[in-house]
């Protein structure tokens, strides 16, 4: 029964190959609202299931989680579709959350999951904008967004930085927590975590390079329109709140 629970958890805090379910679902669902709901709820379900049993997570599962995170981080390097990139990053991140499962209570972990998923949700909203304007959110097809959509580009850069655990964003503090937490139990895991972190950053830079720089191209409907100033302020507000929240909670959970 406990093994079944763990397996079910591995579906929602996705571990390979069960993670394929989430990714297939995310790719199939094109509606932005449904994608947002999926991102917001999927890890929460996983955590809820995980905490229905008191059994400690076995080490082999932690290793499995690390391998999953590493696999998805590595695969992200070759991805050009922003949606797929988001789902792979989410998968990689959520797998890493397993490393905190033994030492933290459900509320804390759920808060962590919310914190780190918010950038993915923002990224999904931004990619919807790209699909609307260009027909797809695909790196390398319509570069030069910095020229044609400067506000959008600014927000996109910060959101991707937030997703890949740049300091002061929640993902950074969570990653720090995981590394500190793992250092005593699985010293070798730290090395793997750092490699994963490096791969996320590298993939992020590659994605941005294909979208932001270069010469601007017209959109599928001709002229490209940037997001409104008010919208960009809204994004900024969310991101600032994230930073403030993460700084605050980093003290609370220190």
């Amino acid at each position, binding site marked *: 029964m406990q093994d079944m629970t763990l397996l079910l958890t591995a579906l929602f805090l996705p571990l390979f190959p069960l993670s394929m379910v989430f990714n297939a679902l995310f790719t199939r669902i094109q509606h932005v609202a449904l994608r947002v709901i999926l991102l917001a709820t999927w890890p929460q379900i996983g955590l809820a299931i995980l905490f229905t049993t008191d059994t400690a997570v076995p080490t082999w599962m932690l290793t499995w989680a690390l391998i999953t995170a590493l696999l998805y981080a590595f695969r992200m390097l070759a991805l050009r579709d922003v949606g797929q990139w988001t789902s792979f990053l989410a998968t990689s991140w959520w797998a890493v959350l397993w490393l905190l499962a033994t030492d933290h209570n459900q509320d804390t972990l759920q808060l962590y999951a919310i914190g780190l998923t918010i950038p993915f949700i923002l990224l999904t909203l931004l990619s919807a904008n790209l699909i609307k304007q260009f*027909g797809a959110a*695909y790196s390398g097809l319509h570069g030069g967004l910095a020229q044609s959509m400067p506000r959008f580009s600014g927000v996109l850069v910060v959101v991707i930085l937030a997703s890949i655990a740049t300091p002061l964003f929640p993902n950074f503090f969570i990653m720090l927590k995981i590394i500190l937490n793992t250092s005593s139990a699985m010293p070798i895991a730290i090395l793997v975590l750092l490699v994963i972190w490096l791969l996320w950053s590298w993939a992020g830079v590659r994605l941005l390079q294909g979208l932001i720089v270069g010469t601007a191209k017209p959109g*599928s409907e001709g002229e490209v329109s940037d997001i409104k100033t008010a919208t960009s302020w809204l994004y900024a507000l969310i991101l600032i709140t994230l930073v403030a929240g993460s700084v605050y909670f980093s003290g609370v959970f220190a």
Partner: protein
Amino acid sequence: MSLPLGTKLKIRSMIYIAGEPIPYFWPMRSFIHHNPLHALEHLPFKDAVSEGERLFHGRGYLPRTTYQGYLEQGKVDHEHLRQDIKTFLSTRDNINDIDEERCLMNLLTKTTQPVIQDHSLASSADLKAAFNGQVPTTDTSINIEQIKESLRQKLQGDRPVYEAIDALYGTEIGKELDELVIKSCLDFFDEGQSVWGMPEREQGFFCAWREVASCNAKLFVRGKDINKILEANKSPEGIICRVMETLQIPEENWVAYFTSELTRLHGWAGFVRWRASAKHYYWNEKYPADLVDFAAVRLIFALALLKEQARKHIPSTASEISNLIENHAEETYLRYELNSGSVLPAFAVQVEQALAIGNKKRIINVFNKYVINKRAHEASQQAKRLRQLAIAADCKIEALKNMSEDNLAKLVNTFSDFEKQEGYTWLRAMESHAMSQLLKGVSLQPEPKREKRPFVQAMFCIDTRSERIRRHLESVGDYQTFGIAGFFGIPVSFMELGKGSQSHLCPVLLTPKNLVLEMSVAEQLDVNAATAMKKAVHELKESIFGPFVTVEAIGILFGFDMLGKTLMPQTYHHWRSQFKKKKPPTHMLLDKLDREQADSIVRAVQRAVIVQAVHQEFKLETEQVSDGMVRELREASLGKLNDTVVFKQTLKLSNQQAKDFVKRLQDVYRITPAFSRIQLEQLARIGFSLDEQVNFVSQALRSIGMTKEFSRFILLFGHGSTSDNNPYESALDCGACGGNHGLVNARALAQMANKAEVRYRLRKQGIDIAEDAWFIPALHNTTTDELKLYDLDRLPSSHIVYIDRLRNGLLSASRLCAQERLPSLQIQETPREPAAAYREIERNSMDWSQVRPEWGLSRNAYFIIGRRALTHELTLEGRAFLHSYDYRVDTKRRLLENILTGPLVVGQWINMEHYFSTVDNERFGSGSKVYHNVADRFGVMTGNLSDLRTGLPSQTVLNKGLPYHEPLRLITVMEAPFEHAKQAIEAVVTVKYLVYNAWIRLLIIDPEEQLVCSYENGEWIKRPLSSLQKPVSPEEANTL
């Protein structure tokens, strides 16, 4: 294996021909403005631009929206646009269903995006269906042969194999190849920037590179086993042949293939090409290289990288690509769509996944689905754009809907062809406006008779920047100005005081025969100490370990320097300049040496060398070396004496020892008859004979029509610029002086013209220079507008009382000019008082963060050959090259031909450099200065690794991302009778082709017939000047 000589020569010839379209790249120390499409000047301008766009992947005209902006500002002749559209349509089949003229006018002036898109799949039937709101019928299957043909055109022919692979597989072989070639070039062509040089450079580029590459572990580790390729042949020609055979390129495509390879890094290729042709160039003599070496290195790297990819089962030869197209057309098509960025966005993921999985059935399924959608997409997009155009042009949409498929195809073709050549239409319309504005303001009135001679006559360079200062100088007093090529017609090879190399101070088209030396009249500087200090600082900064070990000790000194330059550039500059030792007063050795003087100099040099040699070899002090001993040794070395008695006795040497020393003097110190002859020949180059001096002065004065009524002061203004931290500084100097300051030529002409013997002979030729007329050399600093007089120590005492008045006049002109220029250099166009503007502009020249110390020759548009009175009333805003010319003193047209041969050609180069740098700053220009880094001391790169940036930086031609320079072909105005001018043009072949191929727009203003003659579309058109003139309002004058 060695290659037969015939094959080697064939390869060399092929590379030579392949390299011809690539423009030379001169070292930036003496920046030469040139036409990037110079090699295509044998073609009409329009065709050359198309060819240039194909070769260099650049843009030949501005974007449509920029021209539309000019139209709004009234800088485009609207009527000319209409006429050009009519002319264009007259050559096409008429389509009655729609008003094409109105549509094309709307397309030009109202539509911002191209109307016709490249469509590879949609047919006119699909377009018709799309107009009627239908989806193209799926029963018409896609013609796979058509797709194959399209792929062949895109991927084969002269396209390098690795480019095709990159386009199909998304690899970045081309990028990596460029980086490897650039690194190799940086290593070999370094001119002293690195402290550690590449070994074996004396053997030439290919051999030196070969030595290094064969032990490059990094390449070996990555699998690029260069050695295997190098083993195939020793010579670069052999390697090239081998690589081309391995890549399976048909031999008939080799030349075009080489051109494609070389144009990928046309900056480096242009530099190598120039260097190989510059026989006198020190670095090429020392470390030779040519395009064959360059091509060999490039091709070896290309093959190695392709081989590396081949291990991943990616094709690596032209035949394999061909097979791929023939046997896997669907996959190849999808690959090309995905990696060239033209894939339908909605299909991107699907196509990528199908290709990644590699299942043939799945690929064909995706292909079938994709092409149907692509066809529908192309048709609907095309229909949408045509519909929008029709609405904008007030045409009935129904007409489009009801149009037959044939007519629809014709319409699309007409619009497509028009869009391909619309840039030329815009250009002509802009030029038409610029010409009519100029013609409205020119005056053929004779100059009013003067009661007395002017206070000062001043000769300025024809440079566009002189126009402003001349206008202001004329406005502040009784100053008469003339325009002449900045080298004053004297090609000089100049050896500056304290420098061992010669600079050619003349247009690059000429090679000077005469050498001028600068001699100090003060105590000599300790040059060695200064040089050693500079070298030590350089080594500290540039070596790998220097900064590491010295930063704590002396780093703070550089910190002070940085703070001073950044925070208080002007004050710091003045403070620091106090510590610099000023250059001592100098004279120039201008007169030719006679035989006796030359002999005497050679003797003196040989004697000095012998004294040094004796000191060096035997530690004998100068006072111990007697004249007799030196004479004896010299004559023995020259073979005139057999024994050296005094020398032997003084040093107590045996016969053999003395003979050995004499041999050493011959072999090491080169005291031989043969070397003496060489020295005498070199000395014979120094200076000008009296005849030459008379000729140069006479020609300079006659060419500008200055043969009588000489003033007391005749100022000869050379020009130059001063700026800090600016690799492009020489681009702001005088182009006619080979990208150097023009002061030396001014000093030379002044010294010649002030000579009594010269004046005496000129008088005999009818040029009567007044007794009290004095030529003073001067420098116009184009960055600060300062006008500074030189060689005043030679001024006759009778003139000194007028100097204050002269200086005041010059200062006033400088300040007024600065006031006029300053607003265009500021971010905020705030007007300033003249004195404040002058100070502000001076600061610009000292500010090391200033990326635009001046606008240089930007906005040049006109070249006016005629009397000053022709445009005296016009404010030309520094847009015109002004060459003074009076056809009445040039009955044989010799002077006019000289003007056409030199100054006009240089003007055209400058104009074309600005034109192409503006229309495509990234490809033909050099992009933003902000990212530039000096490469090897002769060029700049963007970032730390790029092609050598040719052309002008964006800060010189663009303002806030939009063109500051208005790109027009040079509008050349000649004031002379039609036949007189026409015959002069016919006599100068270069200029004849420039005019007939429309590289310059020529207007001949015939003052005798009062006609304006222009050359358009292959014929001369004559119109009365009066019909083109009406009063010019101040607003119109400003739009010039």
